[in-house]
């Protein structure tokens, strides 16, 4: 998607491109204004903790998931005893998953456990086949491989339905796709996604595929007769355009608007000029992969993680570290559970009493444990388990 002229000075956030304003970081406040969603403030976080009788997830406490649409309504309904279901997805374009890819799934697992609700996960193999020019077989294969890493995040099979578009589109799902498509003009979809006359018709007709899972009637084997069941979608904020379109359509076809809970972007390991947006995986050293060994993690963090520390120990003790740009601190913000410990590190490092090496060492411990746990869980995922998660089957205890 090309944005020309005056848009070039602004930051660009679309499902296919994320860049900050020249030389800066993404301005999330501006984004919330521009998109028209709401801030997820502390009172909401507290409300979630109260309703679920457990501490809120680290991503909520640290403001990783920071924006929402209608999350309050979902919570109101939940308090009245009305459940909801979760919907999230992945575009399986590569075999290699990095930690940034896991973030939405880690959060969704927490939501599933905390609220005890079912979850549908869409693997958009058709989208990647079209946009990344993969063969159908390759995109299907990647979808299954990615499904294994997703399952390894710890989803409960008795509450989770994973599906790939190539397998599942049809029947009631397709009926909803057509209903949705009828409500969105060509001009509108060009306006939202920036399609041009040169784009093939596959791309133009894809948005309803990502919109359809927002409606419970797309899953008759799960939600038959529950047309008023609400849907909550955890996603990264660049997916907002898809769901703005969906929310627009929903009342016109008689469904609740899906609610959204949105995250900021996972920071790339090091900032190059102009690369201040999402993490990039073209350079394997700019990301921690779930297949990295302990040695790889140690090397990558030590060598490539951009440090906000000063260039010499004397200066560092004098001025302290620049926490705004320091990558290890940001990563610890995502993955270090203990609030008190994080606060301690931030204070000491910011004052110059703690050195970059120590911060990196702690980060290496945290990441290694995380990756190791994921790898163990992944090793236990068999092809049969993937089949089970992806089978079109009822989930009798999905709300208990």
């Amino acid at each position, binding site marked *: 998607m090309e944005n020309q002229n005056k848009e070039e000075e602004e930051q660009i956030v679309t499902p296919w491109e994320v860049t900050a304003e020249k030389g800066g970081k993404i301005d999330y406040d501006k984004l919330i204004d521009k998109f028209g969603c709401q801030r997820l403030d502390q009172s909401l976080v507290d409300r979630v903790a109260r309703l679920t009788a457990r501490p809120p997830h680290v991503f909520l406490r640290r403001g990783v998931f920071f924006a929402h649409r209608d999350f309050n309504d979902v919570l109101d309904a939940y308090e009245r005893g009305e459940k909801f279901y979760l919907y999230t997805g992945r575009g399986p374009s590569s075999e290699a998953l990095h930690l940034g890819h896991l973030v939405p799934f880690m959060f969704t697992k927490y939501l599933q456990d905390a609220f005890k609700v079912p979850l549908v996960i869409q693997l958009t193999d058709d989208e990647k086949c079209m946009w990344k020019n993969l063969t159908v077989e390759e995109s299907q294969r990647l979808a299954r491989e990615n499904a294994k890493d997703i399952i390894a995040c710890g989803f409960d*099979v008795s509450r989770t339905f994973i599906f790939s578009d190539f397998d599942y589109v049809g029947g009631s799902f397709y009926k909803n796709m057509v209903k949705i498509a009828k409500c969105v003009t060509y001009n509108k979809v060009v306006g939202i996604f920036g399609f041009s006359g040169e784009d093939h018709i596959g791309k133009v007709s894809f948005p309803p595929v990502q919109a359809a899972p927002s409606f419970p009637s797309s899953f008759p084997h799960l939600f038959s007769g529950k047309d008023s069941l609400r849907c909550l979608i955890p996603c990264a904020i660049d997916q907002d355009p898809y769901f703005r379109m969906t929310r627009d359509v929903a009342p016109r076809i008689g469904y609740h608007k899906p609610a959204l809970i949105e995250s900021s972007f996972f920071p790339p390991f090091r900032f190059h000029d102009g690369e201040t947006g999402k993490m990039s995986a*073209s350079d394997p050293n700019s990301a921690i992969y779930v297949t990295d060994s302990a040695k790889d993690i140690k090397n990558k963090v030590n060598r490539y993680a951009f440090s906000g520390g000063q260039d010499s120990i004397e200066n560092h003790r004098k001025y302290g570290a620049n926490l705004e740009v320091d990558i290890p601190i940001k990563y610890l913000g995502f993955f270090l559970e203990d609030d008190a410990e994080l606060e301690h590190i931030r204070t000491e490092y910011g004052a110059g009493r703690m050195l970059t090496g120590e911060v990196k060492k702690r980060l290496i411990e945290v990441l290694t444990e995380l990756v190791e*746990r994921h790898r163990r869980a992944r*090793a*236990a995922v068999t092809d*049969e388990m993937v089949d089970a998660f992806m089978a079109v089957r009822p989930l009798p205890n999905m709300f208990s």
Partner: protein
Amino acid sequence: MGWTKEQLLARLQELQIDFSKYEHPVVLTVEAQAKYVGHMKGALSKNLFLKDKKQRYYIVSALPETKVDLKVLSQRLGLGKGGIRMAPEEALGEILQVPLGCVTPFALVNESARKVSLLLDQGFKNHECCFFHPLSNDTSIALHVRDLDKFLNSIGKTPAYVDLEANPAVGKDQPPDLATLVPSDATILADTPEKHGSSQGSEKNHISVNNQPTVVTVAKAVKPSTAYTKEKPPSAVNLSISYADPEKFVEEILEKTRTIVLAEVKEENIEKHREQLATMISNSISKQLGLELKNIATIFKNTAYTEGFKAGIHHQPKRL
């Protein structure tokens, strides 16, 4: 010992593969070879023996005029930049069991070369026949690529034809297009010093640095190798067993709990906490183990469900 030229040629005849054989003085380079067979019908080949940082080996067999850029190739294989270089001379003898200047697809017949990946220039398909050394530099044989394929299939290798000059973008959403051609296992050599490849030596293995952006053709997929198929240590099998076996599962939980209790009951803690020691230990257990136990319990549940699911789909209805 490695196959001899005679053994190979006999094998080709057994497979009813047509080839034309030309004997000539020993040659070490394409230029030298051209002096003897260059005027014949058929394309010569230049053959590179390459190695990546994880001890995996590759043969790249190309038309002499095809430009092969190792940097581009390295990225397309998913090895990052500079992940691949010319293999050291010793590897030629140990893995391919051919002399210097004799790299050839036929070397894959040797057991020692079982895990070497072969990349063939798509350009070969445009020629009536192509010349390769049949494991010896004093002979060249010409055969049609489909006969080369026949031979490769007979030794259990799937031929992979690649547009070697293509330079597709490799990035987060554009996976390396040749990643499936990376061997799934490393080949361990007896003692290979990590020397820089012998690229200065034999001209036959020269490389040029130009790359032209051309349309990508994805190579025919060989068995995909992910990091998971590469590392299948015995413990991985044991892991899934403990998730299906209640006894082992409980044993694992008890083991972890025991470890924490034993670690916490030490003199300094006894003195510090005294009557509160029990509370302190049980808090420790909850804090350190809580999350992990929930995770492995979920895996246990998922495994049990999967077993039931599999049994269910194979279930035979009651006979009436």
